């Protein structure tokens, strides 16, 4: 059990680190006639995009964009997608944009990341136009106009991809009250949401099924993190204090290592500010002993 750490404002900050991995990351700007439909489109696209292991990509909304920030002057949303490699992201982008953006009323889709690798966007989706599609170059960038039933779907030809993104930054919130712990986790996700270039890909940004590597069952890559499961405190080699009743994890993916560190810093600040009052007693982080991930974020360096 973790015994060393620093207590700040009634919350014990474990002397440990989050271990994260190198990933590839890409991004899209989705616009629509209204913020409601841009957001609807983005929520649909990023659905079932929690873990790269089971979903093919980790997806989330980075932030809402005002009309001044979008290429076509309409309300927009910036979404980020992370995968093991650019090649792994290519079908994810094509399928998700094809099924969730092309189909959404009034939508348009543009590149949101400048990176050394190009991910096809309109390059492949244009074929939906069945020969009626046309392309247009605006300010040096190529866009496709694909006829659809409410007008035209405008889609940039390619988006960029960075190969030095980071996936798996994380914070573990431990508390003696499940409801209070969830409220603090929500406010932590909100604070992280203010940091650019990061997403928290799990439902509402929060994970309750943190896992350990491997399983007693063949074919399972990950299984219950019994050391952090409160109902197993007395039955396994637990990492939890006696009063801990709930552990929630916030996983963070970012386009840069700095953005992940900034997000963890913002999250820690939110937890320290309001955590103790709602029953959060401790913050920890998930790691594999430092042997698997290239990026280590030490909590004590972030508070």
């Amino acid at each position: 059990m973790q015994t060393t750490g620093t207590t700040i404002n009634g919350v014990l900050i474990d002397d440990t680190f989050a271990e994260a991995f190198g990933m590839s990351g890409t991004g899209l700007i989705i616009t629509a006639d209204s913020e409601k439909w841009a957001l609807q489109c983005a929520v649909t696209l990023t659905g079932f995009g929690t873990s790269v292991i089971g979903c093919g990509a980790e997806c989330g909304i980075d932030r809402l964009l005002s009309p001044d920030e979008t290429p076509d002057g309409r309300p927009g949303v910036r979404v980020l997608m992370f995968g093991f490699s650019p090649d792994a992201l290519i079908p994810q982008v094509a399928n998700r944009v094809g099924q969730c953006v092309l189909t959404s009323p009034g939508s348009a889709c543009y590149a949101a990341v400048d990176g050394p690798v190009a991910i096809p966007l309109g390059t492949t989706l244009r074929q939906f136009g069945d020969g009626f599609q046309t392309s247009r170059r605006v300010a040096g960038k190529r866009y496709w106009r694909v006829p659809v039933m409410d007008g035209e779907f405008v889609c940039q030809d390619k988006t960029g991809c960075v190969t030095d993104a980071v996936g798996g930054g994380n914070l573990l919130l431990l508390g003696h009250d499940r409801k209070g712990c969830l409220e603090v986790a929500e406010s932590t996700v909100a604070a992280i949401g203010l940091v650019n270039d990061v997403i928290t890909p799990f439902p509402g940004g929060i994970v309750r099924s943190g896992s350990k590597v491997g399983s007693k069952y063949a074919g399972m890559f990950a299984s219950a993190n019994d050391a952090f499961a409160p109902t197993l405190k007395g039955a396994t080699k637990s990492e939890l204090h006696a009063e801990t009743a709930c552990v929630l994890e916030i996983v963070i993916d970012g386009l840069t290592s700095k953005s992940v560190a900034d997000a963890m810093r913002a999250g820690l600040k939110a937890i320290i500010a309001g955590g103790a009052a709602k029953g959060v007693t401790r913050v920890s982080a998930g790691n594999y002993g430092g042997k698997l991930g290239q990026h280590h974020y030490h909590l004590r360096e972030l508070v």
Partner: protein
Amino acid sequence: MSRLTLKLKSTPVNRIDLSGLAAGLAKLPAGGVERIVILSGGKPVWLGDVFTVSGTAGSDIAFEGGSDRLDGVGAGMTGGTLTVDGNVGDGAGTGMRGGRLEIRGNVGGMLASGMKGGIIHVTGSAGDFLGAVSAGHRFGMTGGNVIVDGNIGARAGDKMRRGLILARGTAGEAAGSRMIGGTIVAEGGFGPHAGQLMRRGTLIAPRVDRMLATFADCGVHDLVILRLMARGWASELGALAPKPFSPAVRRFAGDLSAIGKGEILLTIT
């Protein structure tokens, strides 16, 4: 900043071909700028025979005064700024790749033929075949932006492939003929036979005289691509950008006697 100033010694009797000026400045002959070879009436002469030359060669060139007989002004430019206070003749900006050509007067024919990049701004009007293909070439303009504050002549953008032609006034007959891509905006309207045999590309105007029967009326639409283009022009051209217009336009697809993937968009005021 270095600046080279050229002033005609007298009103030219012959046509003066300045299309070799850019190459001459890039590789100055012994004897300097005045010994750059240009053509007068088809015969080689030195620049210094025709112009009074002052200043030093650099990124800026200024013609103090112009003439309808100055051909090929700014041809082959790759950067910098060239300003003419007056009219120029044919072939200005031909094959231009970059930089800015500012003509404070009227321009003859074949302006920006084969242009690949850069900006041309004409405060007066321009003649026929603006941005059009010239003999022996496959395409007309393949990039860049041409803004004419007045009217433009016939066959503007013939076989144009990419870029923008903007006329604040009207465009003459058959603008966008055989067009392959790019955009022509005529804020005062197009003349007859606009878009004749165009394959792709976009013509934008409030009206067209005698729309060709081979353009199909596709109705009024709010096109997102026009919002995108307006933003692109505004950021690229600033005050020179086309005047804002509603993205709701009446779309005519054509020319259906070619492959029909071009369009004429009539703005709605």
